[in-house]
């Protein structure tokens, strides 16, 4: 009989999930996971802000010189 648990783990890994991150997360309490997620989201939003500022800059330069 197939080990359904192992199948689920294999499928997640095949889909590209790094399950070592899940292992790390499972060692934390739910509150610690929530706090860690806040930090990750803040980083994502900061990268987005930097990217949009960078994308805006050439437009402004082109407008100024054009």
């Amino acid at each position, binding site marked *: 009989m197939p080990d359904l*648990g192992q199948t689920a*783990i294999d*499928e997640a890994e095949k889909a590209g*999930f790094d399950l070592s991150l*899940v292992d*790390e997360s499972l060692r934390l309490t*739910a509150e610690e*996971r929530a706090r860690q997620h806040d930090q990750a989201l*803040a980083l*994502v939003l900061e990268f987005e802000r930097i990217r949009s500022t960078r994308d805006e800059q050439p437009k402004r330069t082109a407008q100024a010189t054009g």
Partner: protein
Amino acid sequence: MNSLSELLKRLADSGVEFVVVGGFAGVLHGSALVTRDLEICAVLTPANIEKLRAALRDLNPRHRMTPQRLSFLQTPAPGETANNLYLQTDWGVVDILSSILGLGDFESVKANSEFFEIGGKKCRLISLPDLVKAKVAMGREKDLLAAKELRAISAKRERDKPGLELK
């Protein structure tokens, strides 16, 4: 400031009974995926809407799906109910849903929910099997992918459960 966990603590203090669902529920269960919003399931009676308004009052809550970004402090009018509320606040996005696809209304979601603690408050969290069901029912590629990670989390949790000692 963007902090879904602070937003969650604020809601936990609101006096409204709710269950955390969606991607953030996945995070609380151990998912490593990053989500941008907090989704909860609650009964949106006029009384609960007033409690939510009071809880979010100083966070500039507005309906993010309306072009005019109507203020949640005025809409819906007092005494009115709502099916779902899609809000943007100064601390992040919060969606308040009265039912969950694949599961049903608040009572159905609550039935299998479990408790977790945040900021010293006990909150309800959708069960892992129900979260997988909801993700599968959504059927979008990103939800099906998330369901794969959640199934793996479930499998890992099962493995870590202390087994019966055979003598």
